[in-house]
C-alpha cells in the first residue's frame, strides 16, 4: 500500500453512486491506489472490500464476503474508508428537504489529482473562458471581492458573497443574471456549492462534488444536484452538469503538475484566488499529503 497520510486514511471516501450498484453483482474501482470491489446485499445495503480476484460484473453471494471495509451511504453515494472514519459524513442538511429533486449526475474520471479538481470547482475566474455562454461570458470576467474563512468549529473552508454574472446559470435560467454563490469545503476532497435559485428567490440550489482519489494523479468526480426545479427533467439536469464537467476535464488534464502544489510560491495567485489559497493552506495545516505536493519544510 502506498504512503497515505493518516488523515486521508481515516476519511470517508466516495466510491460509487448507490443506485448504480446492482445487488449481488461486483463493481470494481480503485481508491487510494488500492483496487476495491463493491456490491450490495439483498436489502440493498452496500458492501465494500479490498478486491482480490473478483472481476467487474461477477455474480457473488454477498454473505460470503468476510473482510469488509467500513461503509456508509449518504447523498446517493456509497462511502468507505481504510482507517477509522468518523461516525457521520459531513452534513448537507438541504438534501433532506422534502421538495427537492436530488440526483446523482454521474461519475467522470479525470486524469488529475482530487485536490486540483476541488480547486477548479471553487474557482469563478474560469467561467467565462471554460464555460463560455453557460456559467460566464465576456465581458463579465471580473471576480468581485468575496469573503473566505476557515471555520474552526465546523472545520471547513467557507467562501461567501461570491457573485458572478452568468448567461445561463442553471438549466431553468433563460437570461443572464448575477448569481450569488456560497462555497463550502467540508472534506479535503469534497465541496458543496449553494447558488441562487432561478425559481425561488428565497432558497438556493445545491450542487456538490465528491472526488474519489484513485491515485495521487487520478480521480473520479461524483456529482450531486439538489435542486428546486419543477420544470426540467432529470435527464436535462444531468446533461447540464455533465456538459459543465466535460468542459473542465480537458483543462484539468492539461494542468501541471497534476498534484496540487501547496507551496505558496509554486504558482501565482491573484485576489480572485482567495478561496483556493485558503483551501491550500487548510490542506497544508491538516497534514494532507495525498494528491498534493507538500510545501517543503
Amino acid at each position, binding site marked *: 500500500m502506498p504512503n497515505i497520510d493518516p488523515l486521508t486514511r481515516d476519511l470517508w471516501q466516495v466510491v460509487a453512486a448507490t443506485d448504480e450498484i446492482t445487488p449481488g453483482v461486483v463493481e470494481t474501482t480503485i481508491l487510494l491506489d488500492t483496487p476495491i470491489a463493491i456490491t450490495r446485499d439483498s436489502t440493498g445495503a452496500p458492501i465494500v472490500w479490498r478486491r482480490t480476484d473478483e472481476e467487474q460484473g461477477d455474480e457473488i453471494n454477498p454473505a460470503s464476503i468476510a473482510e469488509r471495509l467500513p461503509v456508509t451511504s449518504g447523498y446517493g453515494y456509497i462511502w468507505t474508508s481504510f482507517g477509522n472514519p468518523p461516525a457521520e459524513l459531513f452534513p448537507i442538511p438541504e438534501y433532506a428537504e422534502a421538495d427537492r429533486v436530488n440526483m446523482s449526475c454521474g461519475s467522470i474520471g479525470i486524469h488529475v489529482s482530487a485536490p486540483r479538481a476541488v480547486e477548479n470547482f471553487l474557482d469563478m475566474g474560469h467561467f467565462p473562458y471554460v464555460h463560455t455562454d453557460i456559467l460566464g461570458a465576456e465581458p463579465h*470576467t471580473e471576480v468581485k471581492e468575496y469573503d473566505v474563512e476557515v471555520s474552526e468549529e465546523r472545520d471547513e473552508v467557507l467562501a461567501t458573497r461570491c457573485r458572478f454574472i452568468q448567461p445561463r446559470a442553471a438549466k431553468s435560467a433563460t437570461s443572464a443574471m448575477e448569481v450569488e454563490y456560497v462555497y463550502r469545503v467540508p472534506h479535503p476532497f469534497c465541496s458543496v456549492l449553494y447558488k441562487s435559485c432561478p425559481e425561488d428567490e428565497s432558497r438556493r440550489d445545491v450542487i456538490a462534488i465528491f472526488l474519489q482519489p484513485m491515485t495521487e494523479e487520478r480521480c473520479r468526480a461524483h456529482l450531486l444536484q439538489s435542486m428546486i426545479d419543477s420544470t426540467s427533467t432529470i435527464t436535462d439536469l444531468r446533461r447540464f452538469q455533465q456538459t459543465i464537467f466535460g468542459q473542465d476535464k480537458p*483543462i484539468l488534464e*492539461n494542468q*501541471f503538475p497534476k498534484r496540487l502544489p501547496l*507551496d505558496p510560491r509554486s504558482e501565482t495567485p*491573484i485576489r*480572485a484566488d*482567495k478561496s483556493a489559497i485558503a483551501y491550500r493552506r487548510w490542506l497544508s495545516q491538516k497534514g494532507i499529503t495525498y494528491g498534493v505536493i507538500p510545501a517543503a519544510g
Partner: protein
Amino acid sequence: MTFTLSDPTWYPIASSEDLPFRHVYQGQLLGRELAVWRADDGNVNVWENRCLHRGVRLSIGINEGAELKCQYHGWRYANRSAGCTYIPAHPADAPARRIQNRTYPVREAYGLIWSAANDEQPFRPFPGAEDKDWLPLRPMPVNAEPEDVLAALARLDQYADILPGLSIRSGNVIWFVQPVDAGRAVIRGLLADQPAEPLAELRRYNELLTGLRDRLERAATRKPAPAPLQPIFEKVSADLATMPEIAIPRGNTMTVVVKRKWQSADGVIGFELAARQGHLPTFQPGAHIDVHLPNGMTRQYSITNGPGDLMSYVIGVKAESAGKGGSKVLVETVREGDLLAISEPRNNFPLRRDATRTVLIAGGIGITPLLSMARFLDKSSLPYELHYFVRSGEQAAFRDQLEALHGKVIIHQGLPRDEIAATIATSLGEWSMAQHVYVCGPSAMLESVRATAAAQGWPDEAIHFEYFKNDKVIDNSSSFEIELARSAMTLHVPAGKTILEIMREAGLTVPSSCEQGACGTCLTTVIEGEIDHQDVYLNNSEKASNACMMTCVSRAKSARLVLDI
C-alpha cells in the same frame, strides 16, 4: 554521458514548418515541455509550457499573433518577454505586478527551431552550416536513449563524422538527436541542397529512419529503462506569491538608444527608443514611461506600440513653439544615436479587454496612449472606435499606423468647438452595459467627454482618462512628523509646506520634477504611518497599499510617517 536538466547544448526542438500561423506547438527537451509559437512579427518564442497562474499547458492556449492567451482564465502573455499583460479577473488594475513566464533561448536556422536549457552557451552554427540550402527531413521520434540513437545513426555509415551536440554528418545529411528525455529522442535530419525529387528523397529517408527506430525500440525493451528526468518547476518570486494588493515602488531606470527621430505631423515629433540589447520590458496598452532628460527633468510619454512589440518603444512629443522645459529639450537637442534613461513602463490608464464596445477619444498629442490601445484591441479583433480630433492645419500624427488598423478610425480635422462637443456626443451614444470610453487630450476635451458621457448615462466606472497634470486642489493644512529611516532624522512638516520642501531645507537632495503629484519622480517608500495621498500618479491599489507616496503633495493622516530615505 547522462543527461541533465541543465545541459546547455543547443538542440533542434521543432521544424520551422511546425509553427504555422497562430498555432502553438508543444516541444520537448530534456524532460521539459515547451510551448513554441511564432508571433505575427516572425519572432519565435520558446516558453515553459505552463501558465504561471494555475499551471495549465500553454500549448493548448490561443496564439493571438502578438500575445498568447491561456485557456483557463484568459491571462495574456506578450511576445518576446512572456510578460503578463492582462488578467481578466481584475481588469481594472491588473497586472499590478511584473509577472513573467519562464522563457528559453531560441534561434531559427536551417529550417529548424533550436533551443537550449539555459543561456550559458551562445548559439553556434554546426560545422559547414553556412552556404548550403538545407532541407529538413521528417522527424522520427524514438523511445530509446539519445546516446543509443546517436550510436545507431553512426553505424549507418562507417565514414560518418561525429559532430558536437549529438549530431553526425553522413554524406550530404546531418543528423541531430534531440534528447526529449533520458529514454526518448527525436531524430532530425537536414539534407544539404534541395534534391531534384524532394518527395522521393523524403520518403526514402523516412523508410530508413522507420527501420532504425524499430530496431532501436526493440533493443531498448531489453535494457532497464533509465529514470525519466524530473523537470523542476521553478518557484515564483516571493512578492508574486503573496496576495497581490500591492504594486512595488519602482525607480529602476534603463538606458535606451534614440533609434529614430522624425516629424510625425505638424508639431509632433516621433521618437523610437530601442533597447541596447534584446527587448524592452512588457507594457500594457495605455502605459507610459518616464523619460529622464539631459537637463535633469523627467517627463512622461505614452507608449504607442502594439502588443508584443518590444524591440523599441515609440513615443510622440509635442513640439510647442512656446514650449519650455521637457519637450523642448527632447525636440531640440536629443538626436538619433543619443542615449536616454527611461523608467520601466507603468500604467495608470488600464484598458479593459472584455468590453462589448470601446470608444477611444483622442485630442492632439493625446493620440499616443489611445493608438496603443487601438492596436491591442485590433490584434484581438475586439470592437472599438477611435475618434481623433486635430486642429485645422495640423495633420494627424501616426497616420500610417492608424491606417493599418482594421477598426473604425475617424479623424476629425479642424472642427469648431461646438461641433467637437456634438461629435463627441454622437460618437459616445447612449451607454449600455459593458461599454467603455477612454479619453486623452487637452483638459477642456477631457471635461467635455466626462460631462457628455455622464449626461448620456455613462457611469463613472465606464469613463477612463489619464491625468498628466494634477488639477486637484491640494489640501496642505495638516502638520505632522516625518522620520527618515536611512538618514536617521526626524523633521516637522507644518501646514503650508510640503514634505519635499522640508527635506530640502534639512539639506537632503531629493529628486522631483512636476511637484504636483503627477510625474512620479519623487516616489518614496513609506515604512510606517498612514498616508494622505493627493497625487494622480499612483493607482488606487497602490494608494491602498499604504507603502509608497509622492513627497511633493502627499501628507500624513497619522501623527508620524516613517520614510525609507
